[in-house]
C-alpha cells in the first residue's frame, strides 16, 4: 500500500475497508436493512397516525369548517366545538411559562454556575433527576392535595390556577435538566475572560453565559412547555372538568375564567370525547386531536424561530 503524503484520520470505517475491501457479506447487508427498518418504522407509525387522524376528522371540518374552533362545547356531537378546551389550554400554558421558566432556569443557573460539589448540591441534582421520572399522574395527586385542597384560599379550588401550578411543578425538573445542559455547553474560557476583566459572577452570567446559552435554553424550554400542553393525566386530578364538560361557561370574562370559573383543557376534552360510545364522537375526537397537533406544531415552530433569532444576534 502506498504511503499517502497527507495524513488521513484513521476511522474504524477505513480500517474495516482496508481489511475487507468494499465487499459486504449478505449477513451484514441483511442486518443493516433490519436495523434501518427499525428506525424507519417510527416514521411509518407517525405517517399512519396522522393519516388516521386526518381521515377520521375530515367529516367535522368538511361540515363546519373552522367554526369548530370557535364554537363552545356541547353534549351534542354534531354541535360541539372546542372553544373552552383551547382557552383552558392557553391559560394553563401561560401560567406554566410564568412559573416554570424563571424557576427552572434559576435553579439550573444555581446548579451549574454557583453550586460547589457538596453533599447538598449532589442531593439537589439526584432529587431533580428523580422528580423528572415521577409519572405525571402522581403530580396530579400533588396538585389535588396541595393546589386544589390545601391552597384553596389562593387558587379557589378547581381553577386554571391550580391546574397551571400543577403542570408547572411537573415540568420544572425537565426545564432544569435541559437548561443545565445548555449552560454546560458554554465554553469555560468565556467565564474566565469575564472574571479576568473584573466582572462579578452575576455580571458574567448575565452578559456572557446566558446570551450564548439562550438559543438552547429557549428551544429546550419551549419543547418542555409543549409537553405540558399535551398532558391530560395530572389535570384529571387537579380539577379540570371531565364528565360534565359542557358546563364550562363560554362567555365569562378572562379574569373570571382563570380565577373562579371551572375549566377544562384540550387534551382533557379529547380524553372525554374518546370515551363516548356514539360514533359521531369519534370524528369529533379526531378533530380535537388535529387542533391539538396543529397548536403543538405552532409551539415548535416558535421554538425554531426563537432559536434562529437568538443565534443570529450573538
Amino acid at each position: 500500500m502506498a504511503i499517502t503524503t497527507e495524513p488521513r484520520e484513521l476511522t474504524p470505517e477505513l480500517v474495516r475497508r482496508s481489511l475487507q475491501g468494499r465487499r459486504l457479506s449478505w449477513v451484514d447487508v441483511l442486518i443493516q436493512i433490519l436495523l434501518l427498518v427499525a428506525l424507519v418504522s417510527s416514521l411509518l407509525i407517525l405517517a399512519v397516525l396522522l393519516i388516521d387522524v386526518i381521515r377520521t376528522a375530515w367529516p367535522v371540518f368538511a361540515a363546519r369548517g373552522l367554526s369548530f374552533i370557535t364554537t363552545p362545547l356541547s353534549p351534542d356531537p354534531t354541535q360541539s366545538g372546542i372553544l373552552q378546551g383551547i382557552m383552558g389550554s392557553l391559560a394553563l400554558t401561560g401560567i406554566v411559562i410564568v412559573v416554570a421558566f424563571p424557576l427552572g432556569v434559576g435553579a439550573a443557573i444555581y446548579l451549574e454556575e454557583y453550586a460547589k460539589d457538596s453533599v447538598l448540591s449532589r442531593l439537589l441534582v439526584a432529587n431533580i433527576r428523580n422528580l423528572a421520572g415521577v409519572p405525571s399522574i402522581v403530580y396530579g395527586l400533588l396538585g389535588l392535595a396541595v393546589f386544589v385542597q390545601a391552597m384553596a384560599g389562593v387558587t379557589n379550588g378547581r381553577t386554571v390556577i391550580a391546574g397551571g401550578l400543577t403542570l408547572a411543578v411537573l415540568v420544572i425538573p425537565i426545564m432544569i435538566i435541559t437548561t443545565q445542559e445548555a449552560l454546560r455547553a458554554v465554553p469555560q474560557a468565556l467565564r474566565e475572560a469575564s472574571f479576568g476583566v473584573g466582572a462579578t459572577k452575576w455580571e458574567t452570567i448575565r452578559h456572557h453565559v446566558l446570551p450564548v446559552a439562550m438559543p438552547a435554553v429557549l428551544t429546550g424550554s419551549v419543547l418542555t412547555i409543549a409537553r405540558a400542553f399535551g398532558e391530560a393525566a395530572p389535570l384529571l386530578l387537579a380539577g379540570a372538568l371531565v364528565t360534565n364538560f359542557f358546563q364550562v361557561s363560554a362567555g365569562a370574562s378572562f379574569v373570571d375564567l382563570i380565577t373562579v370559573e371551572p375549566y377544562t383543557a384540550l387534551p382533557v376534552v379529547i380524553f372525554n370525547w374518546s370515551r363516548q360510545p356514539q360514533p359521531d364522537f369519534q370524528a369529533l375526537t379526531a378533530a380535537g386531536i388535529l387542533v391539538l397537533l396543529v397548536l403543538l406544531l405552532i409551539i415548535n415552530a416558535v421554538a425554531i424561530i426563537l432559536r434562529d433569532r437568538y443565534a443570529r444576534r450573538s
Partner: protein
Amino acid sequence: MRTEQDMARMLRGNPRRRRREAIVRTLFFLAAALSIVVSVAIVLSVVIDAVEFLSAIDLNQLWADGWFPRRGRFSIPTIFVGSLMITLVALVVALPLGLGAAIYLSEYARPGVRRALKPTLEILAGVPSVVLGFFALSFITPNIMQAIWQDTQVFNYGAAGIAVGILIIPLIASVAEDAMRAVPQSLREASYGLGAKRWHTSLRVIFPAALSGIVAAVILGFARALGETMVVAIAAGASGGALLNVDITQGGTTMTAAMASLAIGSDQVAGDSSAFQSLFFVGLLLFLMTLGLNVLSERLVRRFRQKY
C-alpha cells in the same frame, strides 16, 4: 498612606455590587431548593391519605376478587398484573424497534441519514399520550388486534400496550444510542483489526460493551410505561373496575387507569370516602415503583460512565 484595612476594603469591592451578588445567588439557590419542597410535598400528599386509606379498610380487601373500589374490593394484584401486562406488550414492541434504531443511528448511519431520521424519533416523542390512546382505539384495535385475534374486544390490553410501546420507542432509542456512542472508538478499531465483520463489531462487541447503559434504557422505558395513564385509560377500558385478566385480547385495568377512573369521578364523589382515598394508596405504590426503577437505571448509567 493606605492602611492594610483600606486595601482589604478596596479588594472586597463596591458594597452595593456585593449585596446584589448575594441577593441573586440566594434567589437562584431558593429556586433550586424548591425541588426538595416539591419532593416532600409529593411524598406527604400521597402518604397521608394512603395511610388513612389503609387504616380505614380491612387489609383482606387488598386481595379481594378484582378491583371494584366502589364496592370495597381493592385487589392490588389485579391492577398490578394489569400494569405488568401493558408494560410487557409495550416492551415487546419497543425493544426491537427502539434498540434497532439506536444501533443503526450509532453504528451505521452516515451523518446525513442521521440528521434526516433522528428528528422523526423526536417528533414521535412529542406526540401527546391522549393522541396515542385514540390511535390505539381507532386504528390498532381494528387493524392489528382484531385482524390477528378476531374475537378481540374493543377495549383490550394488546392495543393499549402496543400504543404505550410506540410512546417509549424514542426514550429507549435515545438513551441506548447515547450509551453505544460512548463506547470508545478503540474497541471498534480493534474489532475490525481482528478482521471482524461490521455486524459482528456492532452486535457482538459494541452492544455488549454498552450493555449496562442499554439495560438502563430498558428500565427507563419500563418505568415510563408503568406510569403511562391516558393511553391505558382510553384504550384498555374497564372504567368501573375489572377482574384479574392476563389475556391481551380482553380489557382490564392498571394502576394508572384505576387512578384515572377514580379521578374522573372525583368532582362528584365526596372527598373522604375510602374508594377515593385508594387513589392515593395506588399513587404511592406507583411512585415507589418508578422511583426504584429510576434509581436503578441511574446507578447502571453511572457504573457505565466509570468503566469508560
